[in-house]
């Protein structure tokens, strides 16, 4: 296995510090600057991070698929590991979406789970799908075959996201005749500013974790090399 690690322009400690600062500022905005929503009141503050995390999870799955494509197409030796780490991040953020969405559902409808929330159901499907990704990956010995299997499966994932979303929307018409609506909250002013802060903060957090995890993996590879030597 090649242990070439990419050289990044921004050093990891600086990245971590920037992430911490941005997340703090975003949190301060969420709790002290953003006004209460006219309909949802205080509870809408969950959404700033909930939506940001959901978008970040999609971005991670997308990045994983992009790296998978790089592996299959260009035979980039680092792409397999990067794809795996990106998908791994996506699953962690996906679980956070499920937890925060569940808390919001409990507050709004009194149940920990509602099938009428498209996004929650989609993340449940994606969670099952990507959990199987790990099962697949750890059921094959490390090597080119495992890299290929993981890459192909990650590509299936990005096709599954829109198809599942469409399916869940379609299913509603026969599963839930009564549709809950979220009262299209008009987002503007300080709410928009807050969201524009939380979204990059969470994306940056995901990127930092991705870099840290990759650093760990490259040390791991180096260790294996030293042991073999």
């Amino acid at each position, binding site marked *: 296995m090649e242990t070439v690690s990419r050289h990044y322009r921004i050093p990891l400690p600086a990245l971590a510090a920037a992430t911490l600062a941005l997340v703090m500022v975003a949190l301060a905005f969420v709790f002290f600057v953003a006004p209460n929503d006219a309909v949802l009141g205080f509870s809408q503050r969950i959404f700033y991070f909930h939506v940001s995390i959901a978008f970040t999870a999609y971005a991670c799955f997308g990045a994983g698929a992009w790296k998978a494509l790089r592996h299959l197409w260009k035979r980039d030796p680092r792409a397999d590991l990067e794809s795996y780490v990106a998908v791994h991040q996506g699953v962690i953020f996906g679980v956070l979406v499920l937890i925060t969405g569940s808390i919001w559902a409990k507050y709004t409808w009194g149940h920990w789970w509602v099938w009428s929330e498209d996004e929650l159901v989609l993340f449940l499907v994606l969670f099952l799908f990507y959990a199987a990704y790990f099962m697949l990956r750890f059921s094959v010995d490390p090597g080119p075959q495992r890299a290929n299997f993981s890459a192909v*499966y990650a590509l*299936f994932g990005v096709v599954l996201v829109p*198809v599942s979303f469409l399916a869940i929307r379609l299913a509603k018409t026969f599963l839930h005749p009564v549709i809950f609506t979220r009262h299209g909250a008009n987002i503007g002013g300080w709410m928009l500013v807050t969201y524009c802060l939380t979204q990059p903060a969470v994306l940056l957090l995901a990127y930092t974790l991705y870099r840290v995890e990759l650093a760990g993996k490259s040390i791991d590879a180096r260790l294996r090399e030293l042991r073999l030597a």
Partner: protein
Amino acid sequence: MTYAADVGALARKDLLLELRARDTLPAMLLFVVATFVVFHFALPAHSSQLAASGLLWVAILFTALLGLGRAFVPEREQRVLDGLVLAPCDRSAIWLAKSIATLAFLGAAELVALPVFALFFHGIGGATVAGVVLADLGICAVGTFLGAMAVVTRARDLLLPLLFLPLAIPIVVGGVGATVAGSPGRYLAFLALYDALFGVLCWASFEYVVTE
């Protein structure tokens, strides 16, 4: 040899094997009928027809899984796949031929299963049949692809349902929609879209499953 001839030869090999050994099809038939009987007892006495329609799709999915799990077993046992990969044909032909063979088994099982369902529960409309046909295409395309991956892993039979079921959720949605909805057109279109998208994806990427 042309692509079509390759696919035809490979699919014929699978069908001939099944005719001689009769491994898969009887098992699928028995399984699907047994499932219907279990469903009869699982449904409460006065449950709606809709519930039975939903269960039809569960039965189809699990019957397909039974067949798909067997699809690449002969290849593994005789190490045929290594030879096929070395043969001077396009690798996607292997997938296409195997999909056609599993489609034939699943179709044959459904030829019996659908009338039995109508006998046990309630009649089946044309939209349901169209839905079943379209769903079969998707099930066999994706299932065969995943089966080829699962068969070389350590977990083998355990892995295929885990890989396949999340991907099959859209098929179930389209199928159940075509069965129970008043205007099944959009659900059938959705199934066709699924088949086209995943069919192309499987066809384009199968090469990476069998080569390094």
